[in-house]
C-alpha cells in the first residue's frame, strides 16, 4: 500500500498512547515464593510522578504488557517500585530479567486515591492480600506527611502469615506510636502470635468516627463485600468510602473495553472509586 508519512505530510502531531518509556531495573528483592519487589528508574532520568493508587503498564517486549500498581510513594525520590506476583507470561518474564535490563513503562495511568480530600481527616486503611501493594504507596505518603492527617489506622489481612509482604516495613509501622496498625491472618501458623481471622474481625475493636473518617480499601472482591457493610454500619456515607478495583486491561486509557464494568472504565475512571459510584453497578461485583 502507499504508505504516506503522515508526520511529514500534515500538521498533525501524532502520538502513540501505546509507546512505552524504557526503564531500568535497579533493584530486585524477592519477598516471597511468588512476589518480587522491583525498583525501576526511567531511562531518561525523569520521575514517574505518580499519585498513590495509580498504576503503570509494564512491557516486556516480545511477551506483552500488563498493569501494575505503583507501590512506592511519590515522596520517595526518582526511582519507583512495583511489587509483582508471578502468575503468567509477563510476570514470569519479568522475573527472568536481570538488574540493569530494561522494560517499558506507560503511565502513571488512572485515577489515584483522593489524597487531598483525606488531608486533615482520619484515615482508615484496609488491605487484603495483594491490596497492600497500592496501599503501601498511600501509607508511605501519609507517613511522610504525617502531620497533614489526623488518626491513621491500618488493617492488613492475609491468608497465612507467610503471605505477609514488606515485613521490615510492617515492623516499622507496628513500632510507630502515631498510627494504629493491626495485622491478621485467616489461618494461623506455628509461631504466629497475632490475630487470627478475616480483616473484619479487626474491625470490631475499632472506634470509628463516622463524621471525619475516610476508609480506603483494596483487596479481593469478597473482602469488599464484608468490609463495605461494616463501614456503612459505622455510618460513613457511601461517597466517602474509597476502594480500588482490578480488571484485566489491554490499553489502560479507556479504549480497549476490557476493563469496562457497565458504563465505566476501570482504567480511566478508576481504578480508585467511591462506593457510591460503584454500588449500583452489577459488574463491579461488590
Amino acid at each position, binding site marked *: 500500500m502507499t504508505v504516506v508519512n503522515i508526520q511529514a505530510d500534515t500538521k498533525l502531531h501524532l502520538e502513540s498512547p501505546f509507546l512505552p518509556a524504557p526503564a531500568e531495573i535497579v533493584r530486585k528483592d524477592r519477598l516471597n515464593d511468588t512476589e518480587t519487589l522491583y525498583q525501576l528508574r526511567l531511562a531518561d532520568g525523569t520521575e514517574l510522578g505518580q499519585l498513590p493508587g495509580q498504576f503503570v503498564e509494564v512491557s516486556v517486549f*516480545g*511477551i*506483552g504488557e500488563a498493569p501494575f500498581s505503583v507501590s512506592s510513594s511519590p515522596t520517595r525520590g526518582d526511582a519507583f517500585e512495583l511489587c509483582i506476583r508471578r502468575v*503468567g*507470561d509477563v510476570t*514470569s*518474564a519479568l522475573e*527472568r530479567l536481570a538488574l540493569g535490563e530494561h522494560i517499558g513503562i506507560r503511565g502513571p495511568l488512572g485515577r489515584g486515591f483522593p489524597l487531598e480530600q483525606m488531608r486533615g481527616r482520619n484515615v482508615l486503611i484496609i488491605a487484603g492480600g495483594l491490596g497492600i501493594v497500592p496501599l503501601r504507596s498511600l501509607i508511605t505518603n501519609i507517613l511522610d506527611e504525617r502531620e497533614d492527617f489526623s488518626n491513621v489506622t491500618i488493617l492488613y489481612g492475609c491468608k497465612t502469615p507467610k503471605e505477609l509482604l514488606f515485613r521490615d516495613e510492617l515492623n516499622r509501622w507496628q513500632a510507630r506510636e502515631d498510627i494504629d496498625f493491626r495485622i491478621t491472618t485467616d489461618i494461623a501458623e506455628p509461631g504466629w502470635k497475632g490475630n487470627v481471622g478475616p480483616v473484619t474481625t479487626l474491625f470490631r475493636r475499632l472506634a470509628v468516627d463516622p463524621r471525619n473518617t475516610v476508609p480506603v480499601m483494596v483487596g479481593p472482591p469478597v473482602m469488599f463485600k464484608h468490609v463495605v457493610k461494616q463501614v456503612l454500619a459505622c455510618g460513613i456515607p457511601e461517597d466517602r468510602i474509597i476502594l480500588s478495583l482490578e480488571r484485566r486491561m489491554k490499553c489502560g486509557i479507556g479504549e480497549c473495553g476490557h476493563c469496562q464494568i457497565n458504563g465505566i472504565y476501570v482504567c480511566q475512571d478508576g481504578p480508585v472509586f467511591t462506593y457510591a459510584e460503584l454500588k449500583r453497578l452489577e459488574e463491579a461485583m461488590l
Partner: protein
Amino acid sequence: MYEALQVHKRPRVAIFELASCAGCQLQILNLEDELVDVLGLVEFVYFKEAMSNSSDEYDLALIEGSVTRESDAEKCRTVRERATLVGTLGSCAYPVGIPGLKNHGDVEAAAGIVYGEKADLFASHPVLPVDAVIDVDFRVLGCPIDKKDFLETLTALLLGRKPPSPTYPVCVECRIAENSCAFDRGETCLGPFTRAGCGALCPSYGGRCYGCRGPADDPNVLSMQALLEEHGLTPEQIAADFALYNGYERGA
C-alpha cells in the same frame, strides 16, 4: 510451565507420528522461507520423515496423529516421560480428526471392511486423541497445522510464553474476511462452534467450516443444534457432521 525451555540454548526437538497423514510434519518442511532460521533456533533430533539419525534425548516433543493401538499409547507415555514439554500437531491428535471417524461406526466392522478375513492381524482400538492418553502442554491446531501458527507457537515457547490460541469461534474471523455466510447460501456450517485460528480459510474459499480445530472455549451447543435443525438437518445428520472431526467424546 511454558518457561521450561528457557534453560536450553538450542532446545532439542523430536517429532513423532501416530495415525495421521503426515501432513502436519510436511507443513514444517513446507516452511521454505523460514526453515533455515528455525534450524538455527532448535535442533531436530528425531524427525523420521526427514532424518535417518535419531536420539532419545529431547526437550520438546511434538506428536502428530491419533492413538489407534496400545503401542501408540505406550509411545506417548514414553515421550511424556522424556520430554520437558509435549505438544501436539494437528487435528488427529486433537480433537481427534479424520481417524476418529472410525469411532462413529463399529471398530470391528471397520477392520473387516478394509482387511477382510485378515482383519485380526491389525488389532486396533477406538481412536483416541493424544490428550486422552497423556497430559499435553500445548497444541498446534488444524488439518493440517497452519505454518504461521507453528512458528508463533515455537517462538512463544522459546521466549517462555504461553503459545497463542484463539478461544473464540471461526465466525469472528469469517466476518472480518467479509465472506458470504454458508447459512445465507442455504448450507450449514460449524463455524459458530469451532475454535478459530485458521482465518476462516474454508469459508473464505466458498466452502463451510467442518470443525477441524475442535470446539471453541465456550460454544453454545444447544443453540447451535437448534440452528442446524432449523436449516434442515436431522439430529442424526448433526451428529454425523460433528463426528467428522470431533468423533471423540470428551467428558463434560
